[in-house]
């Protein structure tokens, strides 16, 4: 919990992800938000995640 000291490029990527996802969510119809997020997660899984990583991330995202 100490003062964050992430590398600048990681911070820039986090900011980019935050703003891009925020604005993308705002750009889709309210009725399609869930569908949009699912399509996005599916694309990310197919292109960038193996089975083990996807399973771990699903478990992590369940925790609120």
């Amino acid at each position, binding site marked *: *919990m100490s003062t964050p000291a992430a590398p600048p490029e990681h911070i820039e990527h986090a900011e980019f992800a935050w703003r891009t996802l*925020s604005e993308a969510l*705002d750009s889709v119809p309210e009725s399609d938000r869930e569908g949009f997020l699912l399509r996005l997660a599916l694309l990310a899984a197919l292109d960038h995640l193996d089975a083990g990583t996807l399973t771990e991330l699903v478990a992590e995202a369940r925790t609120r």
Partner: protein
Amino acid sequence: MYFTPHRHGFTPFASSPPDAAPEPVVIVGAGPVGLALALGLARRGVVVTVLESGDSVSYGSRAICLSRHSLEVLERLGVGERFAERSLPWTSGRSFHRDTEVLSFAMPHEDGDVRAPMVNISQSEAEQILVDEIEATDHCTARWRCRVLDCTERDDHVGVRVETPEGSRELRARWVIAADGARSTVRESLVLRMSGTSYEGRYVIADIHWRAPLPTERRVWFDPPSNPGSTIILHRQPADIWRVDYQLGPDDDPEVETTEERIRERITRHLDWLGNTEPWTLEWSSLYRAHSSSLDSYLHGRVLFAGDAAHLVPIFGVRGLNSGLEDADTLAWTLSSVVHGTAGPELLRTYAAERRAAWRQYVDQAEKSTLFMTPGTHGYAMTRDAVLTLANRRPVLRELINPRQSGATHSRTSPLTVGATEDEPRSLVPGDPVPDHAVRVAAGGARTSGLNAERGPDLAVLALDSEPEALADKVAALRARLAPGVGVRGLATSREAARVHGAALPETTLLDDSAETLARALDADFGEVFVIRPAGLLLGRFPDLEHLGRCDALADHVLRGGSR
């Protein structure tokens, strides 16, 4: 005891005689920016009148956080000690999501720093310190209960119509400064409009008197169990006063939510949730909405704009008053040079351009904080919730929660700034604010001081390990051209303590840097020369005194707002 402002009576005065010379400077608004500017001008020998519609300083804490840079400005105005006595320094903060801590941050604070990165003091107290100083200062008059009705541009002056308890008056002024806040009458009378962005989300802000055991740090709760869906910010002020800011929901009625009963109810819920057993009293409250907007230019004929009259920045990151004090600091030396006749009006165009660019820097810094603190759309609200939930598992996300507190702006692209003379990248480049740093003054009995205090409100030539005699000649030549609008000081450092202790030169202050701490803090080579503008920005850095060139040319460059 909560601060109670002193009431000032109206002091009768006549309209400006039509056959007399106009007053040099009239400042509209006795807020912190107008008062700081008045002091900065008066210190440089400019006769200045401040017109204020009210009969006292403002009531309520309002802008409570002063940055380290603002404290440097106030020190140069001669009120640094009083601010230090009456403010509360702080360096760190914590943020919580519901009941879980998700961020702990510390603002930069290093060995050699003269003061804390931030202090808290109510705006009322800050204004009162400045008013008290003005009352003890020559050349400067504050006129209370004088409401400016409008301003009219004439050939060689501005006509200012003023409503007073004894009827209307018209003042004639060479220069008028609009420092009359977000709802500027001067701006309105000149039919000027600010443009920019207004953010969704409103915050109730309140001062409470509360003897709390909590430490002096900024605390923020997102979606706290005490007030689900809201965001609550807590800041300690001196004398057991606490500032509480909390966000209203989109469906909350501001009229209902700003009733005393409702504010008490909301704050009680939160303090009870914190485990509070101490009684507390509500002292003041207001409603706030974030804006990022600005005039296109801060110079219109003979009228200049400063502070909230010129630009607005969101409250998050505490940039409002801190940016206004930068305006006042820059305008004081530029306008003083114009009034004294050492510079032409073109120098004021540089003020206007630099400060407009500074507003842009502030907005760029503030935008992310504002989107996080008051997400105006479903998308930003959803992602903020996700960021807060994941922050302890993905530490990089804590950077998005970090409030990015105000830092001083730079003027790297200003025409006044002399470009870097070396290819090697430095941590301090021309146009940057020069950080204050502890120094040892060698001559006249060694004593500890700060770089900011030693250069004072003047243009400073700081030579590291150079010949003090050669520096003294340069200083004298620059002073001959720049004074009285701008004073000039020479500061020479030496690593040779024996020589330093034996030296005595009238034009320079000798600093003992035998430990080389100042050189390291400035990322400087020995022999290097730093020219520091009166408002603390680095005008240029030069390999040695020879590279400074002719002092006449450097003085012309400064007085023309950049022509070198």
